[in-house]
């Protein structure tokens, strides 16, 4: 078991069948991502970035090969352990935020602590601290629709941190944001990566995100084309 690599991908393949035709979304990806590393995945749409994300996030299962998180092959986990992994080890950030619209910012951030079994008051307190840390202390009881896009993404980031995960998976986190807001979100994520030692894995087209990453992985047709040091 390796303790330095928080994520290991070994010969990872994912084939789909669409209309009787095999689509090789991922076609043999090998990669190791170290603890506290900031890795950006870059590539045209259809290059396999999202599929790779779903694999690392334990949302999809490989056709062949394996994904190891903390040295554990996640295809060998049962439903409980997989849910635990999603809940406690991984924080997800999406391009379109995916906040629960009927819940307030505070309730959204507290939601993962519910599944983690944290007592209600403790979860709310944690959520409040997190929202304050992302600069939304004055917006605790606002609904997502009452917040700007940038604020919604901050809520999503706070939610991703709720159970102190080791890994943050961010799929185009600045894709729906304007330039300035995008920069603020990048600074926030970069800061979390540095101060909390979080492993940050991001898919992006955003040059500013690529610039601050430790490594940039270029994807093409389901394979790694090249890896650059940031």
């Amino acid at each position, binding site marked *: 078991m390796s303790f330095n690599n928080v994520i290991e991908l070994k010969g990872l393949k994912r084939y789909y069948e669409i209309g009787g035709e095999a689509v090789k979304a991922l076609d043999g990806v090998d990669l190791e991502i170290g603890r506290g590393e900031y890795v950006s995945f870059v590539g045209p749409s259809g290059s396999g970035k999202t599929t790779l994300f779903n694999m690392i996030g334990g949302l999809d299962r490989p056709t062949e090969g394996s994904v190891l998180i903390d040295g554990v092959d996640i295809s060998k986990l049962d*439903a*409980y352990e997989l*849910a635990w992994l999603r809940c406690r080890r991984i924080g*997800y950030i999406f391009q379109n935020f995916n906040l629960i619209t009927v819940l307030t910012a505070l309730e959204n951030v507290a*939601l993962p602590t519910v599944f983690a079994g944290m007592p209600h008051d403790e979860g709310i307190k944690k959520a409040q601290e997190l929202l304050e840390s992302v600069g939304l202390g004055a917006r605790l009881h606002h609904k997502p629709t009452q917040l700007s896009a940038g604020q919604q993404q901050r809520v999503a980031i706070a939610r991703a941190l709720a159970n102190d995960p080791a890994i943050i998976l961010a799929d185009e986190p600045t894709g729906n944001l304007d330039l300035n807001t995008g920069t603020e979100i990048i600074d926030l994520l970069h800061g979390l990566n540095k101060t909390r030692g979080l492993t940050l894995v991001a898919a992006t087209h955003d040059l500013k995100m690529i610039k601050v990453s430790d490594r940039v992985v270029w994807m093409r047709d389901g394979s790694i084309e090249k890896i650059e040091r940031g």
Partner: protein
Amino acid sequence: MAAGERRVNLGYAEAFRLGYNQLIRRLDRSLLNVASIALGLSFYTSLLHMDTFYYTYTALGGASLNVEATYYWLVTIALAVSVVGITNAMLISVQERVKEIGTMKCLGAMNQHIVLLFLVEALLQGLVGGIIGYIVGVVAALITTGGTTGYDILLKVPAVQSLTLFATSLTIAVTLSTAATIYPAYRASKLDPVEALRYEL
């Protein structure tokens, strides 16, 4: 960390809190479901009470009166219609929340947690619909029979019998509401998070 600790959970208290939130914040749809249960149930409750009122009236020395048996066929159909209505409303509700369910699964929710959340909503809707339906039903029964039996007949029914009728009505409301939600809840729980997150309404 020990294997035993690698568990996610959703306590009943939290499930009720979340379910209640959903109901309050999607009030229009929940009220329609409540109305659907209340309507079907009020019909049923009114028949039961008319029967009881006539029986009490007879027992106290009045003429012998009954509710016609065909009404029970009608009430069965009315209850079946409300079940179908709730199932339909809940299926639409699942469709509206596909992304939300996918997100919850990313945050650690398991299939059984999604089912639990929907069943909590069904239970609460059943309770509220049941209470409203009960009250409407009793009033309707009084209006129908009161001319013959006297409106004070309600007070002449033995307390145990009244309580039994109330409990029966609530049980039926909650059971029907829950039964109507089983299939939609099952569908929701089986959503694949990858598909769900990609879903656009």
